[in-house]
């Protein structure tokens, strides 16, 4: 785990940047957010499915938080969360076209890095607040009875307000990708699917300028199973609802 980079990789070939567990996480989170949205709008008899999407999102976000500490180079928070100076500089470079055959960043840039953390925080807020709230009529989250009515009401307000913020943040995320594609001439979508980028002739001095040599699949499976177990435990330890 100390040496994740492969310094001898050939310059012309595509290098692995986004590991497979990270890509699966990304796709699954996108699906569970869309699924949550659709089932929230579809009427009360879809609420149980809505809960399942919420639990899935909760597990996926927990996975990503652990992966940000134990995952591959470009998945780790400390490799892409940068200070305000480089964030400001990155804003300035948003207008600059990327030359053919070049890329702006191997992993996340300063803006994309922070954006991913903001999206994670918003999605986490959404999933956690959902555990405690009730629609007054048909359904209550598994931990609704564990909090006071006024706290549950506040979290219900948060669940509905935070959703709008999350939706706006996802829209901004998509706009940024389209801007990169059309405005900057840089395709960020393909690497998020294949995992690979053409890094070009490498004069890299640090591992964050290099690709990764492994997907860490087994580590991903292990953390995935752990997170799944935690979510199942959380849902099953919830107090039984009473009907009287």
């Amino acid at each position: 785990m100390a040496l994740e980079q492969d310094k001898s990789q050939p310059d012309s070939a595509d290098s692995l940047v986004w590991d497979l567990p990270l890509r699966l996480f990304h796709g699954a989170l996108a699906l569970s957010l869309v699924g949550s949205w659709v089932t929230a709008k579809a009427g009360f008899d879809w609420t149980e499915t809505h809960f399942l999407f919420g639990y899935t999102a909760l597990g996926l976000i927990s996975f990503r938080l652990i992966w940000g500490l134990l995952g591959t180079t470009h998945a780790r928070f400390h490799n892409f969360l940068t200070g305000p100076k480089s964030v400001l500089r990155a804003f300035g470079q948003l207008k600059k076209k990327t030359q053919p055959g070049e890329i702006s960043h191997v992993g996340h840039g300063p803006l994309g890095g922070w954006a991913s953390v903001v999206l994670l925080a918003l999605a986490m807020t959404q999933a956690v607040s959902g555990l405690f709230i009730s629609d007054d009529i048909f359904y209550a989250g598994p931990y609704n009875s564990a909090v006071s009515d006024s706290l549950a009401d506040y979290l219900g307000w948060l669940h509905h307000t935070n959703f709008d913020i999350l939706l706006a943040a996802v829209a901004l995320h998509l706009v940024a990708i389209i801007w990169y594609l059309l405005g900057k001439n840089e395709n960020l979508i393909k690497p998020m699917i294949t995992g690979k980028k053409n890094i070009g002739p490498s004069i890299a001095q640090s591992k964050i300028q290099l690709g990764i040599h492994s997907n860490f699949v087994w580590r991903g499976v292990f953390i995935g199973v752990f997170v799944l177990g935690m979510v199942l435990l959380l849902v099953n330890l919830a107090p039984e609802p009473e009907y009287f």
Partner: protein
Amino acid sequence: MFRTIILLSFLTALSGNLFAASAEERAQTGIDTRQGLLKVVASYFSPIVGMARGQIPFDAAVVEKNAGKIAQLAPMLEDVFAMDTRASGLQSGAKDGIWEDKADFNSKAATTAERAVALASSASQGDGLNMKAFGALGSSCKNCHESYREKDDS
């Protein structure tokens, strides 16, 4: 004479306080009453929700009885919300719209009563819980809550 004036002014001041307190108490009683009524409604609806979710066994007699009670209780919503407590400054989940559009509020309560009657009669026909009637009743509750129940902590 002097003592009488002192006594009278004292009593006047005191009664002023008493009336002020009683206005707030009256508003609080009004809020407690309407919240109580909605809790009673919920207590009749809750077992039906449990049956709809398959968490307690279906019992036609309970559905018929409870939906019947909800049909009797729903028209009382108009009465218990007749007192306008907006000026009292007391906290409750009631939105101002209740008193700004009383006709709509009352018609929503009337819809709940009608749908409760429909659910009760469907239960007496004996083919399990009519999910359409159940959903219609619950949606009428939800519809009114979305318009008139404050969902933040105020």
